[in-house]
């Protein structure tokens, strides 16, 4: 029996579960404290069961929709565009890094700017992009694409540059053609870096598309967020959005991890 307990303790997932449970317990204890001391506890820290109940209650919060329906429909609007931008930015970023690797001139010309663009707070540009494009859906896509573009581009480029000289030498001995070098050496070497870039980009793309919503009262998750913060609807809607977007952020990076193992056979080796 004791051995069995120890075995469970050694499992990798066990410690993650332990920490999550610990966080939940801390949350609940603080919720009890808050409930006893504050005037409007649900603004600060509601009990978790209250949030879950709000998710499943059929009470209408805006028009015909219940809280979770409202969150999900507006999430669809916001996140689909964000996702489109994310994919677009990821693809452009990869192609861009590839071009910079292939052409010496282009690589040298653009490298410092690739470094500079990281330091520009693109989310600060969100209102400007909105006023340039004029359409909230287009600007969601554009901002998510810009935000996903540069982590992917820089990381992929690092990946291309990380290939050792010996590998080039070997390919030269094999009399490999240029496209074969790219296909067999450079692109596989850059793959892990490419996925790191995607993982950095994903939560930023979600943030960006929600943030763009708050700029214009035109529906969407961010709009719902600011409405519920102003108590235009139940405050639990706000908590639902918080948990939902956190969940989306975590799930996306997990999915990217899964895709990474699927496309990189060397990662599956035990």
């Amino acid at each position, binding site marked *: 029996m004791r051995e069995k307990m120890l075995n469970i*303790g*050694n499992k*990798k*997932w*066990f*410690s*993650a*579960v*332990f*920490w999550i449970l610990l966080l939940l317990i801390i949350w609940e204890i603080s919720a009890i404290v808050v409930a006893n001391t*504050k005037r409007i506890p649900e*603004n*600060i*820290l509601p009990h978790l069961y209250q949030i879950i109940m709000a998710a499943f209650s059929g009470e209408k919060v805006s028009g015909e929709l219940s809280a979770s329906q409202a969150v999900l429909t507006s999430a669809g609007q916001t996140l689909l565009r964000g996702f489109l931008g994310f994919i677009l930015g990821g693809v452009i970023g990869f192609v861009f890094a590839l071009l910079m690797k292939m052409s*010496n001139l282009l690589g*040298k*010309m*653009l*490298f*410092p*700017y690739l*470094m*500079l663009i*990281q*330091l*520009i*707070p*693109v*989310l*600060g*540009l969100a*209102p*400007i992009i909105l*006023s*340039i494009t004029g359409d909230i859906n287009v600007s969601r896509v554009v901002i998510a694409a810009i935000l996903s573009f540069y982590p992917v581009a820089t990381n992929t480029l690092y990946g291309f540059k990380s290939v050792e*000289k010996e590998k080039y030498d070997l390919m*030269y001995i094999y009399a490999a053609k240029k496209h074969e070098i790219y296909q067999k050496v450079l692109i596989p070497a850059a793959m892990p870096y490419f996925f790191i870039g995607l*993982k*950095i980009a994903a*939560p*930023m793309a*979600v*943030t960006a598309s*929600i*943030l763009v919503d*708050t*700029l214009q009262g035109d529906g969407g998750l*961010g709009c719902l*967020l600011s409405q519920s*913060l102003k108590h235009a609807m139940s405050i639990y809607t*706000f908590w639902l*959005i*918080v*948990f939902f*977007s*956190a969940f*989306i*952020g*975590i799930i*996306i990076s997990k999915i990217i991890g899964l895709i990474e193992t699927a496309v990189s056979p060397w990662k599956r080796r035990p």
Partner: protein
Amino acid sequence: MEDKVVLKKMGRRKKLRERIRENPKWQKASTVILPLIFGIILVGLWQGQVLHRLFHTDTFTLPLLDKIGSIMADNKEKLLENTFSTLQVSLMGLVIGSILGYLMALLASFFPKFGQGGLAVIGAFASIPVVAMAPVFNNWTKDISRDASFRSMISKTIVVMLICAADMGLNAYKGLTNLKPYALDLMAIYASSRKKIFFKLRLPNSIPYVFSALKVSVPASIMTAIVSEYFAEYITGVGRQIRENIVLAQYSTAWAYIATACLIGIFAYAILMILQSIFLKRYH
């Protein structure tokens, strides 16, 4: 690669273009000249309003560069004041967060069984969008102080702190545990104590990882500070001013703040690079 070139070109005179390309002086100069050319083209396109035609916009939404510059010069004091508030938040968050993250990595490396799971949970924090965290901490800090500017600052700092802590924790843990092969064996042969292994091997090994964490978290801390300013109660900071000015349709002032935000980012990164070259001297 050098050998290959020599083999190919033997017995044939090189063309002028190739000779220029292989000249080491040109190679060095080109890393400066080529980006400069691109920059000049970009500025030319902007000032010549070609960019405006490209994006179907006007000089009102996308003001010319000299206009942005003159507005920055006119509003120097206000710009500095807001820059200070943003810098304060991002720097405090960065420092406290990075120290916390490193301590967590230390704990995790001492107790790997429980630490790894903890780090996984913290890594999950990093993928929570800032927009979800900022309003929560706004609510939590409502009772800290009566002064709206102070409690806003605290809530913004906490958000920055969490982002930086997650980043630093994950990287530093890699640095403390990803040792060179046989390094631990060598230390065992020297019969060194756990303390010695830690100070002579693990700690120095983690320093490059600390800098690679900072390379992500310095720009991220500024970006996070700017986004959490959007949600803060007290109106201050570069990010908030961008938004306020856009709402008032004062696009050129908003652009002045955007330019300031870029300058902050560039300066912070430059300082980090200088620090890195000092600290990582012995690693090269």
